[in-house]
């Protein structure tokens, strides 16, 4: 136990502290921009980033992972904030935490393996598209100067890292262009036009909503979506860290930790968050490995806001928009284009449908759900092909069945038999088939009993153990006088 604490916290102190500082610097613009996407004051995202990072540092399941306010979560909150306001968002954040904690306790993280990669690829692509689209109102058709600021931002964030890497380029873009805007006294929209910054630590407060059923009905759908999307992104991020660092992590502990972090964040005026893919990769690349890196990121972020908060309101909006364009380009999975050409058609359809549904509904949770459902249906369709071959050996007529017999394949199965036969010796050979469910058993019953009506002698052979078990339990054909029941 002590040993584990020592490795998770103090085995990489210098690397963790430096990486944590880099992450805090890179986190500020994102936390502000995601608050603006959600439609709340920048402080809501900044408090959330501080609380979530600090809490997951202690109780998260994946050391070295950065959790804070994220775009995926912010996008889900838009309608709630627009229709009901901040207090309901805070209440929804509490409930999100409770749901995620339960997911962790019930070991739901294991179910992640049922989310096909086509859905995950669709998820990140849809996320990138939505983040990009959310920036359009902040720079398109405002003024020529706005475009200049966006272009300057992109030039800095993509060009500068070629020569200088010690400080994250987005922060340099913000500092340089904010100073340029102030010194040049230019007319340009700023963060201050969209919200206020308070230079104080978050304080404990209970969301100011009526605690009744009506409130629950309003926030529940949002909380469920937030809980699912938060876990999907966090567990994907955890897998990335696992791979980069060649270490394992506890996914259920991560779900519980994130639940507690979100629950607490709701009481401190922050919005629900989850793990951030981009920031986490920055952390690991900068040398962050342990829990200390996440803690440093959260604490240093808060420190910067306390010291520099007054300047944040003067950041020109197009600069933030430019940084978010970079974030969306980094989030998008560019290898999707070769995936479109190389992957199986059904996977490509699932990926595109996931993206399309998210973009139409503005809801990543619905996209994931639809994608999983569609791929389940396509999978069932793919394996439901069943073949019945008829051949005659030694006076017996053998029907050799090949494939999976379940609800989706029973019709094809029954239609494959020739029921004109009478007074024959028939064998149904299941040695290359598997009976999966009661519909499958019902179909076997139907075939056997139909042949018996034609005075045929029928035997079922070659069932594998699990098929035999379900047949024994459910089939009626063993009774020579059995009638077809209505399956």
């Amino acid at each position, binding site marked *: 136990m002590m040993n584990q604490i020592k490795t998770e916290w103090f085995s990489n102190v210098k690397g963790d502290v430096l990486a944590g500082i880099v992450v805090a610097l890179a986190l500020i613009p994102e936390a502000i921009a995601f608050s603006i996407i959600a439609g709340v004051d920048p402080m809501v995202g900044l408090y959330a980033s501080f609380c979530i990072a600090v809490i997951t540092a202690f109780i998260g399941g994946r050391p070295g992972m950065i959790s804070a306010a994220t775009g995926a979560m912010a996008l889900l909150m838009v309608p709630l904030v627009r229709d009901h306001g901040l207090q309901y968002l805070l209440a929804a954040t509490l409930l999100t935490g409770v749901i995620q904690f339960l997911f962790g306790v019930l070991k739901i993280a294991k179910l992640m393996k049922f989310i096909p*990669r086509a859905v995950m690829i669709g998820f*990140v692509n849809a996320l990138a598209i939505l983040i990009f689209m959310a920036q359009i109102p902040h720079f398109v058709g405002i003024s020529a100067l706005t475009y200049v600021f966006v272009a300057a931002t992109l030039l800095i964030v993509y060009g500068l890292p070629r020569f200088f890497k010690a400080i994250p380029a987005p922060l340099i873009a913000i500092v340089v262009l904010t100073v340029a805007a102030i010194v040049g006294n230019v007319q340009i929209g700023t963060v201050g036009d969209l919200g206020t910054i308070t230079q104080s630590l978050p304080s404990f407060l209970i969301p100011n909503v009526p605690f009744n059923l009506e409130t629950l009905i309003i926030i529940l759908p949002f909380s469920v979506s937030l809980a699912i999307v938060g876990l999907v992104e966090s567990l994907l991020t955890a897998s990335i860290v*696992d*791979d980069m660092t*060649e270490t394992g992590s506890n996914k259920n502990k991560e779900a519980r930790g994130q639940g507690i972090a979100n629950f607490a964040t709701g009481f401190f005026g922050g919005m629900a968050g989850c793990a951030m893919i981009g920031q986490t990769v920055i952390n690991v690349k900068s040398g962050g490995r342990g829990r200390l890196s996440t803690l440093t990121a959260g604490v240093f972020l808060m420190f910067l806001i306390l010291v520099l908060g007054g300047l944040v309101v003067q950041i020109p909006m197009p600069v933030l928009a430019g940084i978010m364009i970079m974030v969306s380009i980094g989030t998008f999975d*560019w290898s999707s284009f070769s995936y479109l050409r190389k992957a199986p058609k059904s996977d490509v359809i699932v990926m595109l449908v996931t993206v399309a549904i998210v973009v139409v509904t503005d809801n990543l949770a619905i996209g994931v759900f639809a994608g999983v459902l569609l791929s389940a249906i396509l999978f069932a369709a793919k394996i439901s092909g069943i073949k019945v071959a008829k051949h005659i050996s030694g006076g017996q007529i053998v029907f050799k069945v090949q494939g999976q017999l379940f609800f989706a394949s029973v019709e094809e199965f029954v239609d494959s038999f020739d029921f004109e036969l009478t007074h024959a010796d028939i064998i149904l050979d299941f040695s290359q088939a598997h009976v999966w469910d009661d519909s499958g058993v019902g179909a076997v019953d139907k075939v056997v009993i139909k042949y018996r009506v034609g005075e045929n002698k029928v035997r079922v052979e070659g069932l594998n153990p699990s098929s035999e078990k379900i047949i024994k339990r459910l089939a009626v054909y063993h009774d020579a006088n059995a009638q077809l029941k209505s399956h």
Partner: protein
Amino acid sequence: MYSNILLAADGSENAVRAANEALAIASVMPGCKIEILFVIDDSKVKEEVLHSQNEEERQYKRHQKLLPIEDVFAGRNIDHKITIIHGDPGPVIVDYAKRNQVDLIILGSRGLNALQEFVLGSVSHKVVKRAACPVMIVK
């Protein structure tokens, strides 16, 4: 003359060409060892995780990338071993060579144009600039 060659491999065709050069050099130098260094690029991990259902599939795909290189050395009676590490390819190759007394680094050139090189950064350029031993770039 060379006793410890480092061959940087990334699963591309250029790496296979580099492997053939490494083989040609090592075959005329008795006692020469080849260390095949396969760097898993940190910037591509997100993509690899996203495009594989689980860790098994990821390992399998990575090993598949190494097969063409293994083929080059198969049955050639040249002392070689494969090392797989994570990191940013350029610095990792340089650092690994310094720590393991490598006396020649061989790597393939991807043949990027000016724009690609600006965006992606040239691994061979970084290695040549910072390595402490001779570097052979195979075109």
